[in-house]
C-alpha cells in the first residue's frame, strides 16, 4: 500500500470514527423534550361519543372559510351537494374517518365493529413542523401552545408536510399560490371569546374544548368509571354551564392517546378500539424534533466545529496552493 493511500484511509477512518461515537449515543445527543406551555389549550376527543354526523366538519369549513371538497372519483356520485373529502387536505382542516371490520355490526368494537375518529392537528408539545420550518412560518404560542401558520413567512418547501408524524399540514397543490392548510384551533374565534367551531357544534360532547390539564383529568375520570354507569358528558367547553349529554360509560381502551406520544400533544383521544386502528400510530415518548435538533445543535453549537474545520482547511489549502504556485 503506498503512502498516500494509507494516509487517505487513515483520514477516512478518522472521520468515520469521529462521527460514529456521537452516532452511537444517539440517545445522549437528544435535547430534552419541550415542556407543555403553562396555559395549554386543547381538545378531548372521545371516539365512543362520536356519532359521525360531521357537523364539526361543516362548522370548521364555515368558520375557516375553506371550500367544500369533492374528490374527482366521487364527483359524479353527488353533484355539488355533499362535502366528500376523505381525509384532511389543503381544503379540509378536520374530518371524521371511520374504522370498520367484518360485518360492522357494533360501534366501538374491534371485531365485526366500527368506530369513528376525528383527524386534525394535535398541536404537539414539541412539534416537528415548528422545528423543521426554515423561516419560522410555523410557530407554537408560548402561552396556550397553539401551533399557528404564517403564510407571509412560508416559502412552501413543505418540509412540515413531510416531517409531521400525523401528516397534518397540507399544501394546496391545486392552487398556483397555495398555502399550507392546518387546524389553528380557531384562533380567530378564540380571540372573540368563542371556542373552536368543531367543539362548539358537537352535539354529543365527543369534541370537548378546554385546558389541557383539566381535559386530562376528565379523561382519567371517564377511564376510572365502571362501564355501564351513567355519566354526564360535558359539551362545548369543559367547565361551561351547557346542558350535558347523559350516557353510559363505554368500554374504553385503557390508554389516553396524546399524553406522551412524540413528547406529548394538546389533544387527548379516548376510544373503544385500539388507537392504531383509528390511524393514530404508536409513537415513542421522545419527540422527533429532540433528536434532529440535538444532532444539529451538537454539530453546529456556536459554529465552533465548522469554524475549527474551516481553519484547518484554510491552512491545508494554503499549503497546497503555495506548492503549486503556477496553477489555479
Amino acid at each position: 500500500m503506498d503512502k498516500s493511500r494509507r494516509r487517505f484511509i487513515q483520514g477516512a477512518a478518522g472521520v468515520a470514527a469521529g462521527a460514529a461515537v456521537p452516532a452511537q449515543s444517539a440517545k445522549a445527543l437528544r435535547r430534552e423534550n419541550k415542556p407543555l406551555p403553562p396555559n395549554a389549550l386543547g381538545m378531548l376527543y372521545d371516539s365512543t361519543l362520536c356519532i359521525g354526523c360531521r357537523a364539526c366538519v361543516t362548522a370548521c369549513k364555515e368558520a375557516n372559510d375553506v371550500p367544500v371538497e369533492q374528490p374527482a372519483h366521487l364527483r359524479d356520485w353527488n353533484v355539488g351537494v355533499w362535502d366528500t373529502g376523505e381525509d384532511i387536505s389543503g381544503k379540509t382542516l378536520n374530518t371524521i374517518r371511520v374504522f370498520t371490520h367484518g360485518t360492522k355490526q357494533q360501534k366501538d368494537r374491534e371485531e365485526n365493529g366500527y368506530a369513528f375518529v376525528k383527524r386534525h392537528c394535535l398541536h404537539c408539545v414539541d412539534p416537528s413542523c415548528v422545528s423543521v420550518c426554515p423561516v419560522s412560518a410555523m410557530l407554537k404560542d408560548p402561552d396556550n401552545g397553539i401551533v399557528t401558520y404564517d403564510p407571509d413567512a412560508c416559502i412552501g418547501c413543505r418540509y412540515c408536510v413531510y416531517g409531521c408524524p400525523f401528516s397534518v399540514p397540507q399544501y394546496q397543490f391545486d392552487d398556483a399560490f397555495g398555502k399550507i392548510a392546518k387546524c389553528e384551533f380557531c384562533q380567530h374565534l378564540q380571540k372573540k371569546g368563542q371556542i373552536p367551531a368543531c367543539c362548539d357544534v358537537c352535539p354529543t360532547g365527543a369534541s370537548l374544548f378546554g385546558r389541557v390539564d383539566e381535559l386530562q383529568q376528565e379523561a382519567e375520570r371517564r377511564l376510572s368509571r365502571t362501564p355501564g354507569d351513567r355519566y354526564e358528558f360535558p359539551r362545548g367547553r369543559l367547565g361551561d354551564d351547557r346542558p350535558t349529554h347523559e350516557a353510559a360509560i363505554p368500554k374504553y381502551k385503557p390508554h389516553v392517546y396524546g399524553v406522551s406520544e412524540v413528547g406529548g400533544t394538546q389533544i387527548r383521544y379516548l376510544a373503544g378500539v385500539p388507537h392504531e386502528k383509528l390511524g393514530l400510530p404508536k409513537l415513542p415518548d421522545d419527540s422527533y424534533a429532540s433528536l434532529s435538533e440535538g444532532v444539529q445543535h451538537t454539530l453546529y453549537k456556536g459554529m465552533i466545529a465548522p469554524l475549527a474545520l474551516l481553519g484547518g482547511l484554510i491552512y491545508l489549502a494554503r499549503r497546497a496552493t503555495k506548492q503549486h504556485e503556477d496553477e489555479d
Partner: protein
Amino acid sequence: MPQSTHQPLGGKLLTKPFLFFALLFAIAVYFLATRFMFGLGSVTNLNGGYPWGVWVVVDVIIGTAFGCGGFAMALLVYIFNKGEYHPLMRPALLGGLFGYTLGGMAVIFDLGRYWNFYNLLLPWYAQPSSVMFEVALCVMAYILVLWIEFSPAFLERFGLTNAKQKLKRFLYIIIALGVLLPTMHQSSLGSLLLVMGSQLSPLWYTAWLPLWFLLTAIAMGYGIVILESTLVTNAFRLPSEQRILSKLSPIVGWLLAVFLVLRFVDLLIRGQIAPMFAAEMNASMFWLEILVFAIPTVILLSPARRTSQQQMFLAALLLLAAGSLYRINAYLVGYEPGNGWSYFPSAPELMVTIGVISLEIMLYLVFVKKLPVLHGTRPA
C-alpha cells in the same frame, strides 16, 4: 509540475445532440409554465402524503450530489495535497457549478411559495434549529463559492491576467470554503431525515444518516469525475486520462468499502436484521442498492479491472446509480406516510427533471467549447 494548459475546445455549438437537448428543455419549459399558472398539482403527482417528489429528490438532492465533483477533487488536490490530480479539477468544478446552480434553480420551481424565497435571508424569519435553514444558506453560499472558484476560466478567456493574479492570492480561502460548505450541507441532506422517525423504514433511519450522505456524496463526486473524463476524452478525442483515473480509483473503492461495512455494522447494532429479509419492497430495494454499491467497489479495488476504460466507465455509472438509489430509497421508497398514500412521478414531472438535466448538458457543452476548461493538446 507542468504549467496547466486549459484550452477551449472550440467547434460548432449547434450540433445535433445540442438541438436534441434543447428540444427536451423546451418541453420542460412548457410544463413549468403550466406549473406556475395552475399550481404544482397540475403537473406533478405530489400529494398530502408525498409532498416531496422527483423535483426535490432528483433535481436537488441527487443533483447536488452529482455536483460534488468539485468538492471531492478539491478535497484530494488541496486538502490531501495531491497535485497530480489537478488536470481533473477544472472540469469537475464546472460539473459542480451546473449541478448546484441548476439544483438551486429547481428549488425555486418546486417551492410552493417561491415569491417568499428571500425570507430565508431575513434574520427575523430565521429558524436556526431547522436543518432546512442550514442547507438553504449553505447551498446558496456554495453556489457563490463555485462561481468564484471557477472564475479563473473566465478571467483567462477574457485576458484579465491581473484580476486572476489578485484572485489567486486569496483563492485558498475560497477553496477551503468550497470544502467546508459541501461537507456541511451534504451531510445535512441526511440530517433532514432525522426528524422522520417511524415514518422512515429502519433500513434507512439511523443517527448515522448525515455521515452516510456525506460519504456517498464524496464517492459520487469521484464517480462523476471518472464518468465525465471518460466521456469527454472520447467524444472530443483528447488524450486519455486513464492513468490518473486508475490511480484515483482505489481511493474511491476504499471509501465505498468503508461505507458498506459501516452500513451493516450500524444495522447490526440497531438489531435491524429482520427488515433486511422481510418479503417487502423495502428489503428488495435495500439489497438492490447494496448490490449496485458493491459492484463498483469490487471493480475499483481490483488492480486488473481498473486499467480497463470500459470497466472504469461501468464502475462510475454504477457508483452514481447506487448513490442516487440510496437517496431515492431514503427519501421516497423507505418513507411511509400511512393513510394509503402513494406516489410515482407523472410524465410531465419527469419531463421537467429531464429538461433540467438537458440544460445542464447544453451549458456544459457551451462552456467547454468556449472557455478554457479542459486540458487539451489540440490548438484551440
